[in-house]
């Protein structure tokens, strides 16, 4: 761990050690290649009893439950749950708007901390982790791997990527839904400055593909509060036209637009069963992640 995190500014070893106390679990059964901590849709050899099934020719006679035969004089086979690993895909919005930060750190920096920590925790428990950086398309795409050495390239990608350009998050999420062949845990980190209606279709698409989706919507305090005093020329960080406005005069309507959009996003997330977390960039990422992990731990067990 030290070798991987020592030189990364966005990782805190102490925070990671505290977060490691709570395992990262999936809310939905995963189809992993090896044994792991996550529920699988198949029967396996874990210690957790699943069900009795009638013996059929071809079954291994060693799995016949003779105690049940003694009671019922019928042949039953005892089945157990299977545990497997998962494929975690981290999708980070690296458009220009993620470069905004009024409280010292940008939204991208915050996203990098969350993504890096999740990647470390997943690999540590044997899960495969991949990364997709999205701006005006997929900027960086690292397929999921579960070996610890894979973290180095993932962290390098996080460190080297700079937020710039417009966002094409919606098409990329659709593309991701099609390209991931197996069930996966998809974690999206973005400010979601896109139309809410378009978000619905892409999350429904991902859900249809049986992916476990988690979303971190990152917002800067200044974006939420809009505390400006003087007339301001707002230059679009994604290359759009600038807007000249008197904040005193427009603040009311800005807040109304912000409120409407956030409410719409929240509704979509709830209706599409997305594990949604809104994050202020001045919050502690450790606390956000701890809430995320604990929330998932309570929700595990479905197969």
């Amino acid at each position, binding site marked *: 761990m030290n070798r991987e995190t020592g030189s990364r500014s966005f990782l805190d070893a102490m925070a990671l050690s505290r977060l490691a106390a709570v395992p990262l679990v999936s809310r939905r059964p995963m189809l992993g290649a090896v044994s792991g901590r996550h529920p699988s849709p198949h029967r396996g050899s874990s210690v957790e009893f699943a069900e009795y099934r009638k013996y059929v020719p071809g079954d291994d006679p060693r799995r016949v439950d003779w105690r049940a035969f003694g009671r019922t004089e019928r042949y039953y086979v005892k089945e157990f749950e299977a545990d497997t690993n998962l494929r975690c895909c981290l999708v980070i919005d690296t458009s220009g708007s993620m470069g905004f930060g009024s409280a010292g750190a940008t939204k991208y920096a915050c996203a990098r901390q969350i993504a890096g920590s999740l990647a470390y925790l997943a690999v540590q428990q044997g899960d495969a982790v991949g990364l997709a950086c999205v701006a005006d398309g997929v900027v960086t795409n690292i397929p999921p791997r579960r070996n610890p050495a894979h973290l180095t390239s993932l962290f390098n990608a996080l460190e080297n990527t700079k937020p710039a350009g417009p966002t094409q998050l919606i098409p990329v999420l659709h593309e991701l839904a099609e390209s991931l062949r197996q069930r996966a845990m998809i974690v999206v980190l973005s400010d979601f400055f896109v139309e809410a209606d378009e978000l619905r279709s892409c999350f429904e698409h991902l859900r249809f593909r049986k992916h476990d989706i988690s979303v971190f919507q990152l917002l800067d305090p200044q974006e939420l509060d809009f505390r400006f005093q003087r007339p301001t020329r*707002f230059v*679009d960080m994604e290359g759009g036209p600038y*807007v000249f406005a008197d904040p005193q*005069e427009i603040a009311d309507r800005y807040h109304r637009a*912000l409120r409407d959009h956030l409410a719409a996003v929240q509704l979509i997330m709830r209706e599409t069963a997305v594990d949604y977390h809104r994050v202020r960039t001045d919050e502690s990422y450790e606390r956000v992640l701890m809430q995320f992990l604990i929330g998932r731990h309570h929700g595990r067990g479905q197969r």
Partner: protein
Amino acid sequence: MSFLQPYILAALPLIGLPILIHLINQWRYQTVEWGAMMYLLAAHRMSRGFARIRQWLILAARVLAVAGLVFAFSRPLSSGWLGLVAGSRSDTTIILLDRSPSMAQQDASQGASKLQRGRQQLEQALGLLRSSKWVLIDSTERRPLESETLGNLLALPQAEASSASAHLPTMLQAAYDYIKTNQTGRTDIWICSDLRQSDWDADHGNWAAMRDAFRDLPQQVRFHLLAYDETPTANVAVRVTQAIVHETGKGRELHLSAVLTRDGAADSTLSVPLELEIDGARSVHTVEIAGSRLELKDHRFPLDRKETRGWGRVAIPADSNLADNQFYFVYDLPPPRRAILVTEVPDAVRPLELAASISSDPEIKCQIEVLSVEQAVSIVWEDVALLMWHAALPEGEVRQSIEDFVKRDGHVMFFPPRQPTDSEAMGLRWTAWESLETPVSIERWQFDADLLARTQSGAALPLGDLQIRRYCGFIGDTTSLATLRNGKTLFARVPTDRGAVYVCATGTSEDDSNMATNAVVLYVAVQRALAAGAGRLGATRQLDAGASSVAGPAWQRLSQEGEGLSTQYHSHAGVYQADERLLAVNRPDQEDQAKILADTQVDNLFQGLDMVRIRDRLTGGSNLVQEIWRMFLMAMLVLLLVEAALCLPRWRQATGGAP
């Protein structure tokens, strides 16, 4: 709106300061790289609604707050009426004060009369407006009184109530003369009056000339009419019309006639206790007024046999006007009425001789003496009541004697001579006789006053029956009393300071007119002139307040009530003794007429002049003018509070706005 410090209004452009600051603030914008552009664009697309109005309201509140501050420092005056004197101080302020008895009308709840309230309002208002010089022209003396301070001026006895009528044309003439003589600078003329028609005399010939004169003045003259035109709601006025002593078999009796007039609601019966005082003896008689007027005719009161003359008083209880609640009278045995008829044709003046010699009252003796022109020099004027001159106008010593006679309140009637000459007397000159093909009757005459007035019963004299066949023209400044259908003046009065001079433009012969056969008009006119002329001869006289000359030191007040300086006794109601004569001074007859000048009439009188009308009421509690800078200061504070409230961020903003 007017201001005491108008020069501070020059700072009014400062109201643009908030706008300037707003523009500078707009210009000093900052540039920010912004991620959440979608919210900004959405906000721009939204209807601005109240947000834009709020911005305008904030700016308006700031502008108005600055304006309020500037106005407060300018010390604005509130008056309930606009167009008061602008803040600059006038050079001279002339106050024309109507002191007539009608100005004594008061409101029961306030207890102050119109005159008192007017004085109080003027003192308060003009004290704020200020002036270099103050001049008072009161309605009685009509002479300018100057003072450096307004308070002193309005505290003079000349500003107190009097019993004399006002005459606004004369007062304005006095104001004009003062302005012209003293070459004043910018002048404000304040007129405090109750707009009585009788006081304003809107038909007076001087009005038009005065308007032109004021317009032509080089300096700016502004008029301010402080009007108290409320008519009394319940007022009764009492007036003695006649007090004559008659000899009877039992002794002497006083025959007293009086009139009670009632203003306001006249549809109900009103019971009035009439207090009568004769030489200190008082009695009360209750009378009932059913309509607007009650006439008491020849009420008899026995007198002490030894007494031939005396005085008395009639009074009624207090009502809305205290000045018309009592009336003084004096009585005496009527003096003989002696008339002189000077004629060049004694045979042709028989009708005049008869008209002057037959008394209308058997108690009164009438005498007439017919003289030739040459005998006129020897007339003894002391006991002459009326001179009738039916010859060429007098010249030399005779003319001078006649002029002196008129100055001693004598009455003269001129009739045309057979042959008009170039001689001139009393401003009159006969021109030539004019024979009319068909007799001409009288078209209009003055029926409300003077010789041709209606009778006491209200009936008009039969002037329409007169037929004029010959007419003698005359030149002179006269006031027409009767006019023929062809526009010529038949009867006229020559304006004089004292006495009376009448002109009749036709003779009494059959060739001239039918005045001899229809002799009612001639008889009434001659008898009225004779009675008026004889009035000055008796030991008692009824005088209209203000009509007599200035009272001399010989006047002594006999009545208990009364006020004013001894030099002003002639304008204050009361009974006075001058030498051996008793004088009863009362308000003039027209003071009992409550007719008010209409607004349009007032506007016409001041047409073309800078006039502001201020209608004040007795019941009103507010002052004419008061400083209202506090109001502006309060308005400014309120505006600043409104501005602060509008600038406050809304609570949603404070909490971030996120759901």
